[in-house]
């Protein structure tokens, strides 16, 4: 296959993946922040978050396969998982590899969610906050050159803005009655760490 097409496909699917994962981040943050509207209830927000994740994974798969397949740069499948060992652009490719590793961990734990403790699932899922910026940096720093193009930079800025806006919404003071009622629990039922005979 014409390696030029593969190269373009890799860059394009990379950009699309970034947009999709940005949407996934925003929707995940919105779910935790209890965001929902009349025509778009919270359950729909969560479903879209999961659906777009699968779509994004598909695009990432194409992005990886075409990047390796075009042969222009020295990459193999091992470098997809083990970071910073690639013959080409080891740092920036490596960031992508770390992001893929985190993505795999998030994917497996989410698939097996019912069988894991909530705490374990949550810790791994929160690594999305590392995965996403790594993916963005990977796209920015690649010396394929496109990362620094104005349209790509503008896309990066838009994605960062979207996630920051979602975080600003999420980090607003939690006034939900359940949260506020539970907060009083520790005042009324303080936990005692010392305890003779325990």
């Amino acid at each position, binding site marked *: 296959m014409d390696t030029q097409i593969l190269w373009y496909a890799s860059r394009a699917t990379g950009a699309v993946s970034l947009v999709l994962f940005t949407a996934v981040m925003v929707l995940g943050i919105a779910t935790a922040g*209890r965001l929902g509207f009349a025509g778009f209830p919270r359950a729909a927000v969560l479903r879209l978050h999961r659906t777009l994740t699968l779509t994004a994974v598909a695009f990432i798969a194409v992005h990886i396969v075409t990047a390796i397949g075009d042969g222009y740069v020295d990459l193999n499948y091992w470098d997809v998982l083990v970071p910073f060992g690639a013959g080409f652009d080891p740092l920036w490719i490596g960031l992508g590899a770390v992001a893929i590793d985190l993505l795999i961990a998030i994917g497996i734990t989410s698939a097996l969610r019912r069988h894991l403790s909530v705490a374990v699932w949550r810790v791994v899922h929160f690594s999305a906050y590392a995965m996403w910026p790594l993916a963005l940096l990977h796209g920015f720093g690649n010396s394929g050159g496109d990362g620094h193009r104005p349209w790509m930079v503008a896309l990066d800025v838009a994605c960062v803005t979207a996630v920051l806006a979602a975080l600003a919404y999420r980090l607003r003071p939690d006034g*939900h*009655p*359940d949260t*506020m*009622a*539970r907060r*009083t*629990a520790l005042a*009324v*039922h303080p*936990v*005692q*760490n*010392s*305890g*003779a*005979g*325990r």
Partner: protein
Amino acid sequence: MSGPARAPAGTLNGRAAIPRATSTARLLPVGAGSSWADHLARLGPLPAAVTDAPGHLAQVLHASGLMGRGGAGFPTGRKVSSVAAAVLRSRTPAVVLANCCEGDPTSLKDRVLIERSPQLVIDGALHAAAAVDADRVVLAVHEHAPAKAQLLAALADRPDPGCEVTVVGVPSRYVASEATALVRYLNTGDARPAGKMVPIWETGVNGRPTLVDNAETLAQLALIARFGPAWFGSVGTVAEPGTSLVTIGGAVPRAGVVEVAHGTPLRAVLARAGAVPAGWALIGGLAGRWVELPAFAEIGYSTGELAAAGGTRGVGSIIVLPPGGCVLTETVRILRFHANAGARQCGPCMFGLPAIAADMAALAGGDRGALDRLRRRLPVIDGRGACGHPDGAVAVAASALSVLTGRDSAHLRQHRRARGCQPPPSVVPLGAAELSPRSLSTGVRS
């Protein structure tokens, strides 16, 4: 408070005499003497538990028909069986947790029992420990209660029990003495109920099978171990053999704790406190029922008979209201107590209990809509918490409503007309935990 004169403690074949079968002075010794020596003189030594037949104690308890005395009334034999089975499955030793807390402020029976027969409670815990293959006994008691010192003194007074026995002080809060809360406190320091998802008879203290029993239940167990199921059933009824400790309080001449044989008519139980069956009483504790005493005079004191008549045994207390006492006013106080006492872990409880407390107060103030709100909310809250706390609040509230729309409806109409009544001073004890309404929260759905 004592029963009929007991037989003199002589010796029979070198052993102290068995307490007279028909006597109800079993748990509480007549006269002084809660020392180890007095205990042995009165009752003889505790027999060794049959440890090579793991189901033996459970069988004996099944035969005796002993039911828990902590409020739930669960058959003790079945509880022991569950723990013993869990020990076999998990191949770890069990833990016996004696609940000596007595969190319900209307009940004094356990503190009287521990003051006068602490050795009997410890006997029961040790016997149960040997029978379910436990290597640890914990006597859980409220941190600043006199019972804590009494248990420590009793332990020091007796020979080495052979397994680890500790007295642990627990926060003096209502929900802290719930069985799963005790286990959670020992594991994490958080004295709040842990729910029914993980059964404590399988995974309790340190992840081990845990037997939690009320102090009085263990004391009864110790007597059954000595004298057998037949002796145990020589008083009481066929359906409910044996005796129970009952706290009689409120507007009675001689408030205190009595030991009664099951089936004793309520009239006779009240007579032990010098009271007659007149007016209203709260029976079963803060999660109990309001009963009109004249209608209950001939009802026998037992779980079955009380429940069938619309009462409940609960924690074994009867609080009699004075003449002119107001069921509604007392219920408002009780519901506020329940709202403040919750662990604040479960939505229907942390929002529902303050809501029904406010509704009941509004009802007392003459609000006509309050009755409908209560009728709508009570079934919604019932059964939707992780522990029985909201269920108890719902039950006492429902009982009050039943009284106020039934036998005492004239009084409710008076509340509507006059927006209240002038009740005599409240008699239902709420302990030190009666907080101001300021600390209630009323949640609104987002």
